[in-house]
């Protein structure tokens, strides 16, 4: 193989890696404009059925810690720190819901208690095992958003 060809190959695989990376938006590259994130973080639609599980899972969304949600009335102990999410899909668009889940502080203000689930805008002294990580993955966010849009009254 000639030197020139090697360089072309390297460049090609770099470009491939680059485009694969661009499909999932890194937390710091997400732009919240007018309380909206317009496009899917992964370029793929979310799965509402999986999103429902992620929403309830204490190790993932644990959204029930703060929100009542009648659709999950089979689960015990819904918190009351945030508003009930019944009908939330009627009140907000998917683009707005995506922004709320990604970084609620960009929508509700710095003072909100609601954690940002896909942001590096976090508190100090993050525990070693969570350092540099978001609470949810990009696909988790899309799944939860897909689920939220199904909540209508």
């Amino acid at each position, binding site marked *: 193989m000639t030197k020139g060809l090697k360089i072309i190959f390297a460049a090609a695989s770099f470009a491939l890696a680059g485009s694969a990376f661009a499909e999932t938006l890194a937390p710091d590259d997400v732009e919240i404009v007018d309380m909206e994130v317009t496009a899917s973080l992964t370029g793929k639609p979310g799965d509402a059925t999986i999103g429902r599980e992620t929403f309830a899972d204490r190790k993932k969304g644990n959204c029930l810690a703060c929100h009542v949600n009648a659709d999950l009335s089979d689960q*015990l*102990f*819904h918190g009351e720190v945030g508003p009930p999410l019944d009908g939330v899909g009627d009140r907000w668009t998917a683009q707005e819901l995506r922004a709320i889940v990604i970084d609620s502080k960009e929508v509700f203000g710095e003072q909100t208690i609601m954690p940002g689930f896909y942001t590096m805008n976090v508190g100090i002294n993050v*525990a070693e095992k969570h350092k540099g990580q978001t609470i949810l993955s990009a696909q988790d966010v899309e799944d939860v958003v897909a689920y939220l849009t199904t909540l209508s009254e």
Partner: protein
Amino acid sequence: MAKIYKTGVLLAGLLTAGMSSAALAGGPVDEKLVIDDELEIITRTAAPEGHPLDEVISGWHYRTEETRALEADSFQNPGMLYVERGEEIWNTVEGDAGKSCASCHGDGEEFLKGIGANYPKWNADANKPFNLELQVDQCREENMQAKPYKFDAADQKALVTYIKHQSIGMPVEIDLSQGEMQEWWKKGEETYYTRTGQLNLACATCHEDYNGNYIRADHLSQGNVNGFPTYRLKQSAMVSLHNRFRGCIRDTRAEFPAAFSDELMALEVYVTWRGTGLSVETPAVRQ
């Protein structure tokens, strides 16, 4: 139309946050704590000057009827066993000097009355505030020639429970005029409002803004410290204050400071002040 509605929802959310506990369903119960039908405990009182809330309320008000009843009956309160054990330790000789606490201080019930209600206290030699654990360790090292306790050793918790219990019913009041207490208070206040961890929460986010609300199965209180060490039913054991602090910080998914570190001592000074005027409840019973 949609936009107006959303603004309404948003406003309602922000209002709830601002109003904190006031009008919410699960707020503090309207009951009185009287232990063994004779000792009245101050569980609600006007907040000290400069306090962000109007009223300070003991964690007792946020617990279930069963848990509240356990604290109101000293025969049923499992924490009382630790008080008994603490009295034994008070009278037991340990260390190379051949002394017990009682050798220097005499009868515990007499000597200790009121002391626990006024800690943490400025310690001029150490040039920092001392809580009871640090004071006990100083006595052990200097006067008894015994080793300091390991953090959360069973005997440390029992002895501190005994000492605090001798002030039961007396209002908490700490002296911020001594030494540099004011600066430590200030440092503690900063910590109280600093958001930590991946969940990005401060003490104030949960205990000031949302006390009276359920967060999943937990009914948030103001996070006052007048009942510590506290008997926790979940753990079937006494829980020390610094253990509780570390647990709450860990729950924000943050690294937590060492027990008795300057950071947690400052927090203890500040949070103790926030509960000024509440009676000492040790051993309180919590879920």
